[in-house]
């Protein structure tokens, strides 16, 4: 590195947003968590293949920068609603992978005590109000949480994650309208991975960019490259500032891609092998972020190796924890349907 270039990087003045906003240690933590999301989902997938986890799951592999970028400026007590593709959001908001694995294994130590599984993973203590099996189901709920924030004056910001498929649900439109009318502290994050199950956005959505929908509800509509952590984090940061200032909601369209199929039943007949391989080889969000960190001198190969090793241990420990945890007693079947009276 030349002296001049080093000086610029050291001053960080010309670097992308996150390198100016966050400390090197915070950024290395981001890389750690992006790996944690990736390896968690690979681990879950392997456990599923080996028959240790039943049901189905929707993997967000390839979308890690989106989850991490959006959650980066959030405080611990800020809240999110998530989707069926919600493992990344859950980890990004602060969940422990051991309790997530335990949930996938259907154990009592899981976040939902084995009642929710992958599609309803939540971590209420960390502000994750839950993934959702209904497309767009969480969007009005996020608006309601934002209404609580405004009425109780807690200062909390609420993020609603959803996919491109949700932008054609009525709940999306009703929720955005109400959030705008009432100027609520909520951020709508559309992770556009190109396909609602098998149907491409080109075939399903009348606008070219989902962010254009924001104009209909008089809120800013922002498009970011969802695979570039800094771009996502910058958009989220601005939206959080706007929300906290009482200026109302923002719609962020984070354009990304899922490497895996929609769910475990997907045979990938609606997209080409070349398309998938291109995204994996050239636009992988972890590779892009890792290279940037290395280029800017925030981490070296040894540091990267240490993160990968630490993540591998965390995943292995998490799976062991899940395996060793107790299953729920059949006698507890009807627990949690109603609030128990002491």
């Amino acid at each position, binding site marked *: 590195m030349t002296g001049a270039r080093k000086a610029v990087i050291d001053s960080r003045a010309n670097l992308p947003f996150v390198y100016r906003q966050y400390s090197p240690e915070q950024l290395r933590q981001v890389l750690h968590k992006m790996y944690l999301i990736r390896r968690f989902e690979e681990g879950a997938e392997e456990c599923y293949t080996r028959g240790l986890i039943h049901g189905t799951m929707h993997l967000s592999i390839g979308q890690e920068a989106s989850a991490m970028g959006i959650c980066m400026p959030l405080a611990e007590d800020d*809240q999110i*609603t998530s989707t069926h593709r919600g493992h990344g959001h859950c980890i990004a908001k602060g969940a422990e992978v051991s309790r997530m694995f335990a949930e996938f294994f259907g154990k009592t130590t*899981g*976040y*939902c*005590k*084995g*009642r*929710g599984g992958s599609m*309803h993973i*939540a971590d*209420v*203590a960390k502000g994750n*109000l*839950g993934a*959702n*099996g*209904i497309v767009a*189901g969480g*969007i*009005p*709920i*996020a*608006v*309601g*949480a*934002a*209404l*609580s*924030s405004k*009425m*109780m004056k807690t200062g909390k910001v609420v993020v609603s994650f959803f996919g491109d498929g949700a932008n054609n649900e*009525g*709940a999306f*439109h*009703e*929720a955005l*309208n*109400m959030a705008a*009318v009432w100027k609520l502290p909520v951020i709508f994050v559309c992770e556009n991975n190109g396909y609602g199950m098998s149907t491409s956005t080109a075939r399903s959505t009348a606008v070219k960019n989902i962010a254009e929908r924001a104009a209909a509800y008089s809120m800013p509509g922002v498009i970011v490259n969802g695979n570039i952590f800094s771009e996502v984090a910058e958009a989220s940061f601005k939206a959080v500032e706007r929300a906290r200032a009482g200026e109302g909601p923002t719609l962020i369209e984070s354009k990304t891609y899922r490497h895996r199929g929609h769910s475990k039943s997907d045979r990938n007949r609606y997209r080409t092998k070349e398309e998938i391989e291109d995204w994996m080889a050239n636009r992988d969000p972890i590779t892009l972020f890792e290279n940037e960190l290395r280029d800017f001198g925030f981490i070296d190969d040894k540091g990267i190796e240490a993160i990968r090793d630490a993540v591998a241990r965390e995943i292995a420990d998490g799976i062991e924890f899940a395996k060793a945890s107790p299953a729920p007693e059949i006698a507890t079947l009807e*627990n*949690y*349907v*109603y*609030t*128990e009276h002491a």
Partner: protein
Amino acid sequence: MDAAVRELSYAQAIQEAMAIAMDMDERVFLMGEDIGVYGGAFQVTGDLVERYGADRVIDTPISELGGAGVAVGAAVTGMRPIFEFQFSDFATLGMEQIVNQAAKMRFMLGGEVSVPLVMRFPAGSGTGAAAQHSQSLEAWLGHVPGLKVIQPATPHDAKGMLLAAVADPDPVMIFEHKLLYKMKGHVPEGHYTVPIGKAEIRREGRDLTIVATSIMVQKALDAAAALEGEGIDIEVVDLRTIRPIDRQTVIDSVKKTSRLLCVYEAVKTLGIGAEVSAMVAESEAFDYLDAPIVRLGGAETPIPYNPDLEKATVPQVPGIIAAARDLVKGVR
């Protein structure tokens, strides 16, 4: 006025309950279509917006699905919303949030949250509003674990059950028959609750148990009064709650009278009468039955516009009298 005889209409009783709830707890607020300055389609919220302000009596856009979802989200994050559907028929537009979210959230999250949400549904026929504004859909929601579903039949219960619903940590769906809104009755002042899940014997009798819901309770009482002169002594059980249902009160009554007639306005087939009948047939009361169980419910048709047709769609007093008489005299 003597407090003991103070009378309010059913609508006034609900309004008073909402005001008391808002006075007692700043987390309680109202949401719904045209519930502010308009006062609600049936004037149930009335002038509450003037007393509590537009921040606590919130007019929503005409967005039943989104509005219901906002109420769910507010409930799980610390508020206590009372959400008014303008007509119970519009529950069909909000069903996703009611059935998939509100009812299941606590369960899906392993007990980590509660959903202290009250939803009010003006229901029923008799107003000439035809097929899309006259339905009785309580059994739809009664089929969903996680929800509580109530049908107060008197002004007294409308107030007390609403206050019980607001205090309840779980989602409570209140079906209010629109023809009851003007019904007057004794309503005590101040705060009191009427328990959810407990039926009430409105009239004691020996010969026949009529289990009725909502507006059919009064019709059953009218029928019972008419049959008194014929020496037929009818017990009327006001079910009040359809989930969780008060099994014991019904079974005990049938054991006493040995005959059961179920009267409800909703479509007869697969309705609450089927549940009550099965409940009795599965219980020790079965051995006490002296006659087949009879159900009187709504006709297998949407609610028609023509007033004569509309009346003929749902049970009326003469039909209840005839069915009760037949049952007791062994014609059935």
